[in-house]
């Protein structure tokens, strides 16, 4: 069982599953909510993640074209998660920083690298994708 919370503690959560993966997203909208960094996201089956407390949500169309719901704590503004409403069935992205063990899983790939700022220190030991995880891979044969 993994646990986590927002900064102020108003929202807590448990996750009764192991991560399906982890990745960093440099899309422009993630940079906006992540104070200029990539969001670092640990992926879990949505049914395994249980939040307690009041959560603010906002729906948006992501750069991928998918309809996404983002959750945040309305008291401290901590970014909590992103989940894809349409198409359904995709893993939920839990912001790694909200996990009590934020190092549970290191990012395995970088996505939307085409919109990363020029100064971003990208880790070339892991795969880079121009856009989403199914887009063109741009850093060779690293697995």
């Amino acid at each position, binding site marked *: 069982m993994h646990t986590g919370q927002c900064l102020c503690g108003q929202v807590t959560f448990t996750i009764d599953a192991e991560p399906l993966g982890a990745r960093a997203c440099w899309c422009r909208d993630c940079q906006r909510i992540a104070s200029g960094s990539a969001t670092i996201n640990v992926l879990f089956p949505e049914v395994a993640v249980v939040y307690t407390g009041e959560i*603010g949500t906002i729906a*948006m169309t992501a750069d991928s074209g998918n309809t996404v719901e983002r959750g945040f704590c309305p008291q401290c503004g901590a970014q909590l998660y992103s989940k894809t409403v349409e198409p359904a069935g995709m893993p939920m992205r839990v912001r*790694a*920083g909200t996990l009590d063990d934020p190092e549970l899983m290191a990012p395995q790939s970088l996505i939307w690298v085409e919109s990363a700022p020029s100064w971003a220190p990208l880790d070339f030991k892991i795969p880079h994708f121009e856009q989403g995880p199914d887009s063109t891979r741009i850093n060779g044969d690293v697995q």
Partner: protein
Amino acid sequence: MTAPYQGHCSCGAVSLEITSEPLWVRQCWCRQCRRIAASGPTNNALFMTDAMTVTGDVAWWDYEAASGNRIAHGFCATCGTQMFGRNAARDGAWVVRLGVLDDAGDLAPKSAIWTSEAPDWATIDPDLEQFEHQPPLPPRKD
């Protein structure tokens, strides 16, 4: 790209304009920043507030930071985008989260602080000046 800078939160409910250049830009790996900002680091530009115009509903949360300073985070009440940071030790200046600027131009972090709390897999530009904890405040001019 130089001042004026424009910016907004993710949903557009809060917007800002800044008519001066920042005093500094640096990134922070502290645990609190990583909790609020989708895992961090936060990248922060310190601007004088008298050069800043903010429109829209900003919510604030304040707490005692790892540095011991009283810190307040300002975020969009509608979408939660982290936008501002106030520090009781810095009169008349707020940090603006770099991601909310529509075009940050040449603004980029020049130092990294609280690197002691960065994850093992963090990539930190070796050219940045690095501090394991909070850097000392510069001497006051008054």
